[in-house]
């Protein structure tokens, strides 16, 4: 049991959450962070989908890593990711249809998410299945965390709601408050991601 949670394994899980965050530090997966974060719910679903897909594709590739011929490894990785993406996409359609409609092509486009290929190439091809699994979960959650932060700010300021519930009290609207239309535009999520990166770097300045 102690080996399962050795320091190295723990680091594989915790590093991507903050110090090595795929979005704020490696600046990967920005496109989908812009596209699906105008509301909180699709952001959460997207984050979870990417977490699941990264974790399991990491495990599968890690199991196959010694048998994959080096020259066609990208194709093999793509096949695995594509299969998982299709499964997740079908599950979303079956159980949370409205969110799946909101996410539209972006679920399918998880296959092109740089975080996935990055983790498969950089981690799963060199490590065993258990660390790979932890690494996948960590990176997926690190990505999801940023999506949730951006989605939270954008939905709160852009629509005045959170997860579809009104949170800005009516008297503020009566007093002249208006929802910020720019928050709904993709441009604003880039600015918010920038601010998150700014905050993240200022906090971690001493640690590095």
């Amino acid at each position: 049991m102690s080996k399962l949670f050795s320091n190295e394994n723990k680091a594989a899980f915790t590093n991507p959450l903050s110090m090595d965050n795929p979005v704020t530090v490696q600046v990967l997966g920005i496109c989908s962070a812009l596209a699906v974060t105008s509301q909180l719910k699709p952001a959460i679903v997207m984050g979870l989908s990417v977490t699941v897909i990264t974790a399991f594709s990491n495990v599968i590739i890690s199991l196959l890593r010694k048998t994959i011929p080096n020259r066609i490894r990208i194709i093999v990785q793509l096949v695995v990711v594509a299969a998982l993406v299709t499964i997740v996409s079908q599950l979303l359609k079956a159980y949370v249809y409205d969110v799946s409609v909101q996410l539209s092509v972006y679920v399918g486009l998880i296959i092109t998410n740089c975080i996935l290929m990055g983790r498969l190439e950089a981690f799963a091809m060199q490590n065993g299945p258990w660390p790979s699994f932890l690494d996948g979960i960590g990176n997926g959650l690190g990505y999801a965390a940023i999506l949730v932060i951006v989605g939270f700010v954008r939905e709160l300021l852009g629509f005045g709601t959170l997860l579809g519930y009104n949170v800005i009290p009516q008297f503020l609207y009566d007093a002249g408050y208006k929802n910020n239309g720019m928050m709904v535009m993709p441009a604003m999520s880039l600015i918010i991601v920038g601010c998150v990166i700014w905050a993240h770097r200022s906090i971690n300045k001493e640690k590095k």
Partner: protein
Amino acid sequence: MNPIKKLFDNIHPYVEEGGKFHAFRSLVDGFETFAFVPNTTSRVGSVNIHDAIDSKRIMSFVVIALLPALLFGMFNVGFQNALACGGDMTDYVGMFLYGLLAVLPKIIVSYVVGLGIEFVVAQWKNEEIQEGYLVSGIIIPMIVPVTCPLWMLAVAVAFSVILAKEIFGGTGMNIFNPALIARAFLFFSYPTAMTGDATVWVAQDTIFGLGYKAADAYTAATPLGEAAVAGFQGFTPETIQDAVIGLVPGCIGETSVIAIALGGLLLLYTGIASWKIMLSVFVGGAATGYLMQALGLTEIQWYEQLVLGGFAFGAVFMATDPVTSCRTECGKYVYGLLIGFIAVLVRVLNPGYPEGMMLAILLLNLFASLIDYCFVQSNINMRAKRVSKK
């Protein structure tokens, strides 16, 4: 001894390192260097060329140049209010006072928020206060409609000072004009409050008993707004005359071409603004306006493009911003021509935006350094060729 100077000398010991009110050092420094030219010059380095006036004096001149447009804008606010509510059209003093009361809170909010952020950042980074907000602070209230709520203005000012200026390194380092970023933020964030349903251009309510209250929501489109509606047949000469004088609905400071021209003359006389940029913006706008008219795309005459909306204000005060415009002399022509071209292009071809000056200047702000780079490189290449021929 000058009493103001004496006051600053008295305050100084308190705000020096270790003094009681050290936290306010940047504040005091800022006001002192604003009131008096600092007595220090750079001693490091070998060559120091100093202009007779420093940046704070330049900014003060720009603020003075803005005053005619601002004062006339205040009058126009009262005038539009009286016109909308059928008030007394001869009470000019009342109109001006009404406008003053309507505009003054915006100026105060803009300065308190903007300068507040600048002071905090300067104290935090332990730098000298940069007075760059002096001009933006007065321009921002002038380029919003009179009904723009104060909290929106405050949010927009905070957004533009932090994200368009301070993160690039403060005054002189910004890529985009902060005043235009504030306006663009308002424009895209709160479109109904900025252009919306045409009730935004005229103050509808009394202030401290002054002015008049509109019975119903009074709608008045800007001339360009009218022109964007289908079935537009061209302006009457009266509209154009009003637009030149400035008695049309619009943003507070942008309406009067005459008042803007007065400010522009001061800027040109003192050499603060580049005449090359100003001229080429007007030429670009006129040529494009003529082209659009000749192609039958618009009913607006080419000269009308120059006097309507924010064209003149943008050309005189915004495009000539020395920080965000081109530095090379040839580049200034290209920069100005393209601003005029794009501003009219947006006006005519984009049905959603009757006004294109803001977008044109912001776009060219982005390209200014590229234009400069091209001209500098071509000059280098030319001279290199000359050397190699010998």
